[in-house]
């Protein structure tokens, strides 16, 4: 199935599934954010990060140990 950034179904359904209420203005904000972020998120998910695991405890004050 092709990826989509269509917000019409996803946003109301997503919020409803979590029990989160949103007024019209908030829905407009969420729709705009979704339109901006979603395509980039889909691209990010496809980015090749093989061999670069999510090191949650990395010491960010120093270079990576392997460098």
């Amino acid at each position: 199935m092709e990826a989509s950034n269509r917000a019409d179904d996803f946003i109301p359904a997503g919020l409803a599934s979590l029990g989160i209420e949103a007024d019209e203005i908030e829905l407009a904000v969420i729709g705009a954010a979704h339109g901006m972020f979603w395509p980039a998120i889909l691209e990010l998910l496809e980015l090749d990060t093989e061999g670069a695991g999510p090191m949650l405890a990395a010491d960010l004050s120093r270079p990576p140990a392997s460098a």
Partner: protein
Amino acid sequence: MSALDLSLRAQAAAIAAGEADAAELLEETLERIGQRNPALNAVVETFPERSGEMLAAAPDGPLRGVPVVIKDEWPLPWRAQRFGAAEMLAPSAPSESGPYRALREAGAVIVGVGNMHELGAGSTGNVSVYGPAANPWDTERCPGGSSSGPAAAVSARMVAGAVGADGIGSIRFPAAYCGLTGLKPTFGRAAMAGHHLAEVSTTIVSGPLCADAADARLLASALFREPLAAGEGRGLRIGIVRDTVTDDVAPAVRDACEEAIRALAEETGGELVEVELADVEPAALATVLIANTEGLTGLSPQRLNDLDPELSPLARGLLKYRMLLPAAASVKAYSVRTLMRRRVAAAFDGVDVIAWPTVPAVAPPLQAPLVELPSGTLTADAANVRGAGLANLTGIPSVSVPVGLSEGLPIGLQLQAAWGKDELLLDAAEALERANGRRWVDSLPPLARAAETTEA
């Protein structure tokens, strides 16, 4: 000339030498805030009695008696932070934050709290529970965010130094928009205790906003609790990246930054080196995802349904949208961090600093924070995050330095260095000041120039 118009270091030296009276300086500072702040809304609260107490108890430190402003992101013993918001979604109470303690130990006097973009979630500073802060260079323009008030206060010379915080560019954006030197330190190097996200955030640091690099070095030394030695930055190898972050930039900003980079190389007897650094833009998104995920602490559907109606609709919508972001993307963001840390480390094998524009366009209007770029019209937030996220994602230090004006508004160049090389960044910033004859760091915004004339 009033001592208040001296640099941060000159104020400290004058007080230490007995040539300036710290009590008079405090009084003059509060008076100037009263005069200049109404046009800017940079300082949201002063507390003369508390400031006087700090002065009376000030130890003989490197900043003894010097007035500074601190961002509304840090609690003080007499005041809880509000994070620029009607509701900050985390417990807050008066306390001794790390930056407060560091300033107190250095002898500094906190004279006021600086405005900030609501919840730290914007690069413009035009949304806040206190109302928008304005840019001293043009009060119809954004001062930058989220450390909007600290930057505007220093730019208008209400104080010579201020402490901000930078989770995704929040010191560097306002430094660029307001014509200041703003340092985002290496992760973990500057005082952070007491921040409501200190235990979970892997992107936020405290840091200085000052007129020039020598002042930023002095204030950073206080925040680091160690003196930052000055060098000459000779033979600087300056990395240049060809990417959206350097290409999709307003022509005047690109020209000023390129000229500054050439001047920096000449001044230091250094060289320009093309650097391969792929995926800077996805790295920025990864930073946003990580920061948003870490900021989810304490959120629940019920909590989101009970948000304070005084929160802006933008904040309410974006908070709720966070709950819809896929977990896989957040995990991927951490993999991108691993990848980019390796790439950045490899890049710094061949160069000392990497340079590109701090923001791709000058400060946009407060009423419509949009920027015109070669690729089209973008929100300032979308455009600004591109060049800022890498430092927060990887942990490296970064500084924004003023390098020009366009439309009467400041242009900022960002320099980034390897982990722990904060001193080198400040050396490079000082070399750049020498190269351009301090033209930009000594420039005053119209509001401060006009006020000087009126107050004389």
